């Protein structure tokens, strides 16, 4: 399978900080990758590098193109929604559809209008009259009508209520995603995306600390609930993390045989957010 993105030795320095530190990764087609990291870990910088919005050192290949040199061509195949409220406030719905329809060669106007028909948006409405959720609905309708190979979402649901958030990801899965498309999403609302992700990437201090698909993560990381009397034995096995619930201890193990853990107590798959918290321990200390 051909890679959509190949990064080798990607680095980016800002004035007095290192946003990306010699990062290498490879993202194949047909995946939904969650790029998760604490604030300031370099997520947005990585996305900006992929989108050709910033300079960097190292090798980066996106859909066979160099985002630094071939940005205009690249953007025919790549869409992104960065944060909410980046649509210009003066723009009307009809103007947005007209404009994108006429400058984007892969835009399907009928599709976009069908998406818009499912919302409360009317053609004459301006962005400044819309709620945050409606702005995202408009942006998503525009983006989903573009037959792009790579979609990048940087905190797309920030500040939205839960109805809009659920609907956002549901639309993406039902009406947009297929095996030819790749989606990269960064968000802090990990719980809401974890069931749609196929791959997970943790980034911390400019480094990728975890890069695996969800199946591999389920095999590698195991959570086990242990009674108090066996906690010492579990601790001796060097768990990633430990927390107490109802007098029992929950340990998170990385790469320990499943059968060994099953003998100690009830095992289960850790949630991405628990895994994240355990991996990022001490980030802000």
């Amino acid at each position: 399978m051909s890679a959509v993105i190949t990064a080798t030795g990607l680095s980016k320095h800002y004035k007095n900080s290192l946003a990306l530190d010699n990062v290498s990764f490879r993202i194949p087609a047909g995946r939904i990758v969650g790029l998760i990291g604490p604030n300031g870990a370099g997520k947005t910088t990585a996305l900006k590098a992929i989108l050709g919005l910033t300079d960097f050192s190292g090798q980066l290949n996106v859909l066979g193109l160099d985002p630094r040199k071939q940005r205009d061509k690249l953007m025919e195949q790549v869409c992104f929604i960065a944060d909410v409220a980046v649509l210009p406030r003066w723009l009307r719905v009809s103007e947005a559809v007209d404009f994108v329809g006429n400058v984007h060669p892969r835009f399907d106007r009928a599709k976009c209008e069908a998406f818009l028909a499912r919302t409360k948006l009317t053609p004459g409405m301006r962005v400044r009259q819309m709620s945050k959720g409606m702005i995202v609905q408009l942006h998503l309708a525009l983006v989903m009508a573009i037959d792009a190979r790579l979609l990048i979402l940087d905190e797309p649901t920030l500040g939205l209520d839960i109805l809009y958030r659920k609907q956002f990801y549901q639309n993406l899965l039902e009406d947009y995603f297929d095996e030819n498309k790749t989606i990269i999403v960064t968000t802090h609302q990990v719980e809401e995306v974890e069931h749609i992700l196929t791959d997970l990437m943790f980034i911390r201090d400019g480094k990728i600390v975890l890069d695996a698909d969800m199946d591999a993560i389920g095999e590698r990381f195991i959570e086990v609930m242990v009674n108090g009397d066996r906690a010492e034995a579990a601790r001796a096995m060097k768990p990633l993390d430990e927390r107490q619930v109802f007098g029992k201890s929950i340990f998170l193990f990385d790469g320990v045989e499943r059968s060994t853990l099953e003998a100690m107590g009830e095992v289960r798959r850790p949630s991405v957010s628990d895994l994240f918290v355990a991996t990022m321990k001490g980030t802000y200390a």
Partner: protein
Amino acid sequence: MKTFYWLVKREFWEHRGGFFWAPLISGSVFLVLNIMALITGEVLGNRSNTHFNIAGGLNLSGHMDADMLGKIGTGLDIAMYVVAGIVLMIMAIIVFFYCLGSLYDDRRDRSILFWKSLPISNRDTVLSKVVSASIVAPVIACVFGTAAGLLLLLIAAFTASLHGLNMWALLMNSHPLLVAINMISLIPLYAIWALPTIGWLMFCSAWARSKPFLWALLAPLAAGVIVSWFGLMGLFNLGSGWFWKNIVSRMLLSLVPGGWLRDAAQIDNEPTDPSVILDHIGLAHNYATLASPDLWIGAIAGSVLISAAIWLRRWRDDS
């Protein structure tokens, strides 16, 4: 090409208020003020039971020979230019601020991320803004300006006809069509002349992290003051006046309509024949500016600044 057309259209959508409504409203306001002045004149004239006079004491109720009519016709032409000039002046102020915001506002509200998510080159984006400032806005202002001038002409002729003057004779001696054609044909010259200011303002707009207005204004003014203070231009055998005129004013004031005429022969203080003035507004006289290096050096400087703005638009990374 299609993309470029839509980019220009987008600029028009965003700045409909400045590009379309402002010249329309300023033209209308000017007309209304004139109508009010004429009515006031009529009323006062009736009260004091004297004849209503325009054009410096011409007795309009009397008979006029062809020469006189010709002079009045020319005067009416000049009046049309004045009306259009006022509308264009307002457009110039609007375009000044449009250029300052053109590459800055969308960085500030981060909508640049939306525009940059579309397959549009930065060159086309910036050039569409240059075209909006140098062609689209002046064309719209010219249309409304000449329309307002034309209406004023009709109103003036109608008022004159109330005083027994032949309205058609007056109108036939003015040249509204010629005025309109002149105005429109001067737009290319205007676009070339305005390039250094458009370029400088857009460069500041693309470069400044905040307050592009202050940078755009203070940098040339400060340079001018330093040059004057230390007499730096003496090194090149040029007075500091040269610097103010050829650098500072070209960077900031080239949007003023007809600015290129500053070097043209001065009109006599009190021209005896109004047609002399009209000659100075004529096309041939204006396009003689094409021969001056001043125009072209400015245009080259403006193009360089615009190229710099395109580069900054591509690589400025602060969103």
